[in-house]
């Protein structure tokens, strides 16, 4: 217990780490708030710049950006009706009407406090549940990891774009990118075409920067003429009565957020929309109608999306499976720093787990501090014209890709994936599953082959054991249900009557 507390407080007692966490959170709020910049993009670029740093320093900066970014998206959703991040889509539904009524400051203050409450709930659940999940994960068979990996890709594929076939295509494409290079078990060449430089595979960071940096920035060029309507902001500190009144809803929404966030491949955007829907159903007599400035419609998604951060860390740290696209990038960062996320991380490097919990807590406190101050500076920065912002994103993406190995080859890979990602995005192929596929490729490959080898190549035994194990059977059932839920027959039978 004492040791855990000691590790927890590492970033609290080191001025350097505290500064980096504060800096990350501050930057994250702006990254999350500025439409066109995404947390995934920022963290991907940051990995390339911080991989030579000490792991704690690099993580402090990235954790801050993640925590701040999830919150930051709400600000532009409230002020400009433009969600800075997908997790703030639900926030705009009632946040913007509140701003139109001249209550922008009140809405921002309330969303800040509720985000922080949600963040704390997520962190508490992470601290309590992760060690148990990790212990439980030690009993997992290779086939369970295989199923979990597939489940993550399927979930993100089915939820991110709405089109299952395109989501599946993207996930499978990501897995293939991850298999390029020498096979880790037999050293046989896969998709290398005799090019020695490809033996070590395609750098996942170059893929990430391309898909999240270049693709996003190119897509933003379509919206150069959008003019945002400015809002006047007065007081930011929310009324104590409001905080007290909406606390039960905030806790309920946080529980949804942390639960949804902890599912592999599902992030804060889905959590926020689900919490909004739950709040709409459970609030019998709202003071203001939902969609017209109901504070409940602001509290629920904001609590849920920040709680989902802690939730997303659970599968990432305990199973090595990303909770969402950002944690997929984090897994890449941990690999680069020589750490192997999964159940053994908790046994071999418990300090990393408690350090992360402590650091998330610190970042959440900084969200509160920065969230309730500096609104004037904020207004100036988010008004930064896209004509200046977009060239700088391209510049950072190129410099970031170059600095991975000081090689122009990584820049070409990054640009190639950026251009491909642009067309994917234009034609509705989600890019999130590609990254999940790249990150999970090794896990799926290793565990598939281990599982088959342990059954001595007998596929029927593999399936019999899968069905006879409660955990494997549950995971298999979940995969089948996801696939079935995308079929026209299912949609016809279970179509909600009111839609």
């Amino acid at each position, binding site marked *: 217990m004492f040791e855990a507390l000691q590790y927890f407080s590492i970033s609290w007692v080191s001025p350097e780490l505290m500064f980096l966490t504060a800096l990350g959170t501050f930057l994250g709020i702006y990254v999350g708030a500025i439409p066109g910049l995404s947390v995934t993009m920022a963290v991907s670029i940051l990995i390339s710049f911080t991989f030579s740093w000490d792991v704690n320093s690099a993580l402090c900066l990235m954790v801050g950006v993640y925590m701040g970014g999830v919150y930051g998206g709400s600000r532009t959703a409230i002020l400009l009706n433009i969600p800075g991040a997908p997790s703030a889509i639900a926030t705009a539904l009632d946040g913007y009407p509140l701003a139109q009524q001249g209550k922008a400051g009140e809405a921002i203050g309330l969303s800040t406090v509720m985000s922080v409450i949600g963040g704390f709930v997520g962190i508490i659940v992470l601290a309590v549940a992760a060690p148990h999940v990790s212990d439980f994960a030690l009993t997992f068979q290779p086939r369970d990891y295989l199923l979990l990996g597939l489940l993550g890709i399927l979930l993100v594929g089915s939820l991110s774009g709405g089109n299952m*076939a395109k989501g599946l295509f993207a996930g499978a494409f990501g897995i293939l990118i991850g298999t390029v290079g020498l096979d880790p078990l037999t050293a*046989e060449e896969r998709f290398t075409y005799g090019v020695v430089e490809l033996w070590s595979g395609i750098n996942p960071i170059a893929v990430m920067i391309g898909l999240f940096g270049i693709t996003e920035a190119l897509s933003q060029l379509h919206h150069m003429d959008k003019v945002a309507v400015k809002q006047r902001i007065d007081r930011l500190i929310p009324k104590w009565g409001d905080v007290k009144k909406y606390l039960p809803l905030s806790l309920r929404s946080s529980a949804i957020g942390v639960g949804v966030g902890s599912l592999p491949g599902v992030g804060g955007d889905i959590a926020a929309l689900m919490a909004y829907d739950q709040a709409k159903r459970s609030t019998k007599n709202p003071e203001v109608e939902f969609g017209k400035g109901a504070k409940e419609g602001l509290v629920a998604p904001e609590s849920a999306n920040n709680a989902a951060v802690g939730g997303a860390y659970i599968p990432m740290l305990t199973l090595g499976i990303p909770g969402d696209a950002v944690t997929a990038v984090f897994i890449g960062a941990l690999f680069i720093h020589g750490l192997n996320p999964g159940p053994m991380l908790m046994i071999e490097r418990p300090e990393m787990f408690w350090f992360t919990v402590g650091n998330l807590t610190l970042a959440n406190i900084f969200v509160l501090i920065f969230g309730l101050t500096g609104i004037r500076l904020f207004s100036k920065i988010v008004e930064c014209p896209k004509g200046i912002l977009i*060239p700088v994103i391209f*510049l950072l993406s190129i410099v970031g890709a*170059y600095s991975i190995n000081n090689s*122009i080859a990584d820049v070409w890979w990054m640009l190639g994936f950026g251009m491909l990602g642009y067309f994917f995005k*234009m034609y509705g192929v989600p890019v999130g599953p590609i990254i999940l596929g790249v990150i999970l490729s090794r896990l799926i490959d290793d565990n598939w082959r281990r599982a088959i080898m342990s059954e001595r190549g007998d596929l029927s035994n593999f399936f019999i054991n899968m069905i006879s194990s409660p955990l494997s059977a549950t995971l298999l059932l979940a995969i089948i249900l996801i696939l079935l839920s995308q079929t026209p027959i299912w949609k016809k039978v279970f179509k909600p009557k009111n839609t």
Partner: protein
Amino acid sequence: MTGISTRMPGEVVFSFVLVILSLVIFWQAYSISGFSSISSPGSLPLAASAIMVMSACFSFVKTLKKPLENHTLFFTHVLPPIVSIILAFILIYSVVLEKLGFIVSTFTFLVISIQFLYRKHFLITLGLALISLITVYVVFRLIFQVILPEGIVPEREIIAAIRNLFS
């Protein structure tokens, strides 16, 4: 972006290219170790590429059934001139980055692209490009110690000379 019930211009060609690409990758995956064993190095690539082929075919058929979205053109709504021009800037920047070095190529890239996208007075563009370049250089080269291509500007000598001035 593509609609749920309509298709964007070029989507049929794009979907067809995905089918062809998936088939080529499937063939490449097969050539790794064929169907020799289900735990061979080629087993996962083969399975993944098979999923790609199936989903690409499914999407292609679905796309064919969708009507074209009204009043949309490929070079206006999918690849407008602004995207093509910026892509060309980025490609040229990447080509000259190592030869000219970070400072010269980045400054040129920023001036041209900011002037093209922001369309303000040239002096404002010059100032913005210079501020952006200095910020990125100080943060990444001097603080983060990221190695950037030197090219034609003898950066190290200049930095050493500046340090000598202050020491």
